[in-house]
Structure formats: C-alpha cells, structure tokens
C-alpha cells in the first residue's frame, strides 16, 4: 500500500500504521542504522567531535553573510558562475534557464535534498527536459513515482521484494530478490545515462568559503560521475551549507558519516572547485552554483537558527520512536521527515500552519538530541514550535475552554471529587475491549479513542487509597 503524502495528517498516519510491510522494512533498517552508528561513535572521542562540529556550524551561521560573499568571490575566481535565488521558483527557473541556454535534453542527478525540497525535477520535466536520479535509492523511488522517505536512505520503506517487483516491471529484469543483481541492472541502465547526459546536477554537503569549493559525499560514485562526465555541472545549495575552511569540511564529513551510516567516512568525497582546467582529459566545461534561500533567512528571522545547523545525517530519524513506526511519508509532502523534518518543514513553509501537526508528532523523549552530531536541541525546538503554532490560532477552540475548565476543577478539591466520581461511573458504562480498556469515548474525547484506547478509571481513587493506607499505617504503628 502507498501512503498518499498529500492526504491529511491523520489519514497518512493511519495508512502508515496499517501497512505491515512498511513496518517490517522500517524496523529492519532503523535498528541496523542505529546499531552501526552506536559502534562508530564508540570508537572515537564523541563529545569532542560533537563540540567541534557544533562550534564550526555555529561560527558559520553567525558569519553567514560574510562567508557567502567570500564563497562567491572564490567560486568566481575558480571559473564558476554563481546564481542567487530567494525562492524555490527562482531556483528552478535559474536551473531551467541554464539548461535551455545549453540546449540540454537529458540531465543526471546526484542525490540532493535541496532539489527535492524545491521540486526541481518537476520544473525541469515541465520544460521538456529528462531528469534521471542516479543514486540507487533515488532511482528506485523515481521509477516508483514516490518521494523519498528518509534523508539518507530514501527507499528505506521498501523491502527487497517490492524493489524486485518494480525492476521486473520497469526494467524487464528477471525475477530475483538478490540486491547485487538488482544493483547490476541499475548500473547498466544508469551508465548509459551518465555517458549521454548533457548536464549533471548535484546538491552540496559543504561549501568551502576560503577556496570556493563545493563538496558532495556519496558511497556509490554517482556524485563523481554526475559532476565529471556531462559538459555542464550545476550545484544547488542551501545557503546554510557554507563553512569557512577546508579542515571544517573534513571534520563535518566524518561527523555526518559516523552519525548517519556508521562508516568512518563515505566512499567518495568530491571537492569541485571549478570547471575542467585547460589540458585536462575530462570534467565539465561549465560549473554553476545556485545559492538558494527559500525560507532559510526567514528561519533566522523567526529565531530558529538552531535548525540551520543540521548536517542532514538522518541519525534523529533512525532513533526516533515515532519515525520508526510511521516512516517518512506520513510526514507529508516534504523532503524532510523525522524530528528534524518536524522542525524545518513548518519553518521553511511560507505559512507554517500548513504543517502544523508535525511538531506534535513526537513524544519528546529526547533521543534525537542525544544522537545529533551538532547537538541541536530538537525537543526544545518542537516545544517552541508547538507554542508558536498555538499562538497562531491553529489549535481547536474547545482546547482552550477545556484547559480552563480543567484548571477550575483541579483547584477545588470538592468539585474535583464530585466530577471524578461521575467520570468513574461513566467509565463503567462506556464500551470497552476484553482487557477492560475504553475503546469509544463520546466527542470531543472520541479523537483520543480513534487511534488509541484509554484505561478505565480505577474503581477506587488515589485519594481513597491514600486515606486507607494512612489508616492502616496508623493502625499498625498503634499496635506496634
């Protein structure tokens, strides 16, 4: 079953929870990733790494405008063309224009969350340009016509059996559940795309200001292919990706890899500082860098700069008890899911209430904060966002009235007693399951029992038990 990412939040969650195959796939993958991360960080001085990574990112955000200017200067000195885009639409238009000017028909893409965020593929396809995702996971979901469901493992929601079925249908592959065979089928298909493409597109993991360098990290080598084989190379980067020095990029690379997949480093770390130099046998003739704001400066204005520190490693997704149950698609039509997605999705949106449920999709257990390589206090941000969204009037009206009534009641013991007696009586007569838990409450409390049960109110209140206990204790001490 597929989850409809544009359906209402409750529907998406219900669809996700009802999908056993999804739960199996998520369970296998997130536990493995969490384990490999734990091993990888146990081998190093984790606290030192987190402090260093955090200090670098804080410095970068505090000096963002100056660093962006320095980056631009050095990119131009390296022979790159630099473009600035305030919105997703502007960014898409810039890339489409570059493609038109070079008469581009086919593009190959290295995996990039920024371009997922701005829906670049759709814009290019609307302009009649073929776009092929080349990361194996992204390629699979492109064939399936689905958005990614994880920042680093986009196809985490599919089992090998699901992928095999897709490849048999789309690529005419013979029936097999062997990942190596499926991978070979994709390699062959994508190799011809790499060699024939007119343009390569990538995102950016780190942009080094002092040297004018765009760094991308991959395990498959599709990043190197997309940035080396086609005659035009376009890098699309969120403005928060800039770091001051070469050493900073190396440190963050190690931090993101250990936290994300548990490797020491990714297989490929490609540092592009401009087009092919004269006399070189290969490399792109042109290199463009598109600096995309698309809501990032607004995040700063809204005082949520913490969210701009994120390295996109995915550790908070893998460890989150909510993500592990519902997966990425339940977070809706967004490139970012899990705890960090619940923070940045409403923040990046022009109208944050379009994703108003997401900050509530968390138990605030705090494990995301513990695994974050740059120490983002995600539970704090989620709470602050809940507060802000409530201020914006996005919570139902009866909620305020209910809370006022509640505080009126608990402040007055006599009234509290009377009402709890009444509630106890009600809980006897409401429908319950075999374990005695209530399954159907009257509105507006029915919202709770739509997806959960409520334990029946105990036959004796705490106050009554306390009174009895006190009497017994007194009695025994009297006897003693």
């Amino acid at each position, binding site marked *: 079953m597929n989850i409809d990412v544009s359906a209402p939040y409750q529907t998406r969650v219900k669809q996700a929870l009802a999908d056993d195959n999804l739960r199996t796939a998520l369970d296998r993958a997130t536990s493995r990733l969490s384990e490999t991360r734990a091993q990888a960080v146990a081998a190093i001085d984790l606290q030192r790494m987190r402090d260093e990574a955090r*200090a670098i990112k804080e410095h970068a955000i505090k000096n963002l405008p100056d660093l962006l200017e320095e980056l631009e200067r050095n990119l131009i000195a390296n022979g790159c063309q630099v473009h600035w885009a*305030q919105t997703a639409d502007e960014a898409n238009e810039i890339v489409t224009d570059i493609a038109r000017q070079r008469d581009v028909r086919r593009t190959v893409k290295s995996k990039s969350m920024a371009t997922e965020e701005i829906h670049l593929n759709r814009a290019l396809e609307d302009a009649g340009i073929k776009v092929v995702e080349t990361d194996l996971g992204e390629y699979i979901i492109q064939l399936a016509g689905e958005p990614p469901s994880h920042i680093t493992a986009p196809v985490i929601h599919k089992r*090998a059996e699901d992928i095999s079925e897709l490849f048999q249908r789309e690529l005419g592959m013979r029936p097999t559940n062997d990942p190596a065979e499926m991978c070979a089928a994709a390699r062959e298909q994508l190799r011809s795309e790499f060699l024939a493409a007119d343009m390569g597109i990538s995102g950016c993991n780190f942009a080094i200001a002092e040297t004018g360098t765009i760094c991308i990290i991959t395990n498959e080598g599709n990043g190197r292919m997309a940035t080396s084989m086609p*005659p035009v190379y376009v890098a699309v980067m969120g403005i928060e990706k800039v770091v001051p020095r070469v050493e900073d990029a190396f440190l963050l690379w190690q931090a993101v890899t250990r936290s994300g997949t548990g490797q020491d480093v990714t297989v490929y770390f490609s540092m592009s500082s*401009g087009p092919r130099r004269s006399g*070189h*046998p290969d490399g792109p003739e042109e290199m463009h860098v598109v600096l995309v704001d698309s809501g990032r400066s607004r995040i700063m*204005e809204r005082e949520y700069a913490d969210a701009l520190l994120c390295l996109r490693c995915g550790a908070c997704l893998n460890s989150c008890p909510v993500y592990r149950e519902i997966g990425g698609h339940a977070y809706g039509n967004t490139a970012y899911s899990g705890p960090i997605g619940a923070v940045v999705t409403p923040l990046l949106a022009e109208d944050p209430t379009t994703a108003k449920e997401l900050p509530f999709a968390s138990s605030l257990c705090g494990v995301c904060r513990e695994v974050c390589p740059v120490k983002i206090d995600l539970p704090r941000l989620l709470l602050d966002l809940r507060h802000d969204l409530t201020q914006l009037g996005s919570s139902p009206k009866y909620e305020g009235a209910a809370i006022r009534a509640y505080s009126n009641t608990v402040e007055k013991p006599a009234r509290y007693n009377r009402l709890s007696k009444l509630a106890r009586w009600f809980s006897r007569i409401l429908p319950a399951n075999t374990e005695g838990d209530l399954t159907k409450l009257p509105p507006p409390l029915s919202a709770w029992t739509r997806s959960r049960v409520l334990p029946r109110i105990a036959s004796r209140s705490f106050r009554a038990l306390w009174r009895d206990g006190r009497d017994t204790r007194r009695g025994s001490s009297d006897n003693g």
Partner: protein
Amino acid sequence: MGNGPAGAREQILGRLRESLAKQGRLFRQSIGLDLPDPPMTVFPSPADKSLVESFATKLVELSGSCDVVRAGADVAERLMQRIREWTAQSPSGPIEILSWAPDELHVPRLEQTLAEGDISLFAPEDLHDQSIRARAASIDVGITGIEAAFANTGSIVLSPGAGRSRAAGLLPLNHLVLVPLSRLYPTFEAWLLKLRQEGRLETLLHESGQLAVVTGPSKSADIELTLTLGVHGPKTIHAIVFDDTE
C-alpha cells in the same frame, strides 16, 4: 556580482544581516566555543602498526585489497598479475587498460614490461570526444596514481590534471592504484597540515578542478541495507604500495 533575479543577492544578504544584528538570542543554547584550531582529530590514529600495515588492513576491511612491493621493477610485475586475473574471462589477445599517462605513474619501465604481456595503456587526452569516450567506457581495468593516501582510513586522493583523467579511477569495474610510500600519510589532518605549511592547499584545489577522496570500492546499502559493491564506480580496488624513497 552574481547572477539570478535582480536584487536576489542583496535581498538575501540584507535579510541575514538584519536578523544577525537585531538578535539577542541566536541559538537556544550556544555551545560557547570558538572555531576550533586544526588538527581536529576524529579518528584514533593507528597505534601499534606501521603506516603501510594500517593502510592495507583498512583497505581490506573495506573489501579492497593491497600488495606491498619493494622496488620499481616489482610494481610492473605485480600490475601484470592483477590485470591477468581480472581479464581472465575476456577473449585472449591484446588487452587495453584505461590509464593515467605513464609519466604520471612514476613506475620505471612500466610500458615496456606490460607490452611484453601484450598489455597496452590507453591514456585519453580528451574524453569529450564521443568515440574516445565510448572506447574508454568499454574498458574493464583502470590504473591511476595518487595525490595522497591515508593509513587510518585506507583512503586515497585523486587529483585530475593533464594526463590524469577522472575516468581512469571511475569508469572501469576494476581500479588499480599505485601508491608511492612517500605519499602515504597517517591521517587527513596530517596531510592538510603539511599542505597548509607549504602553502599548497588552495593551489591544489584550484588546479585539480575536482579533488576526490576515495575510500574503498563503490558501494550501496540502499536495498534493505544489504551491502552491494560496484554500483557506479569500481567494484574492486587494488592498491600496490611501493617504496619510492630509496
């Protein structure tokens, strides 16, 4: 400066500067540390092993392999053995290898030795030529040298240049990499420090166009986290470390 819709650049920079100027609180809780001074070590440095041993151990852990040979002449011999193994399935006859230009590999008498085994090196000058590109793409073995290698991660650095194609270490299914001992460093950090001291870091990045750090064969775990090798880049990587310091 800068392209894009009129004023986009100024608007973005202006908004950022405004936010930074007005804000009392930028982060929920700042870590309160300055930009750290390199080296910022993450990896434990190899302790009881030599650089070569560490490099070889790491590369094998990554599903690569490594030979260590002494003198220059042994390198060509060892290369030939590997190429034979990898091309054993192919029809007999002359074998063509996608390679960096021989003078970029620093191995004496390389071409002559390989020629005795009917192996020739193809070092393309312009891979944007379609027929050259097709020829390169049909080759199963690539040979490159390195800019640097690192003992604690088993990584190599490839730096493109005249006679040093990106394709040789990327397109073929098998990658043979020649590692002169003088270019083997304990860590990334040690190498970066040396480049800084010599004032070569910026030049190297600029002149290469694209510097690539490669750590083991191409791999993916996208399908149910099952490790699969050779997704887009080489499936096997074999390093031959040789002593060039004598």
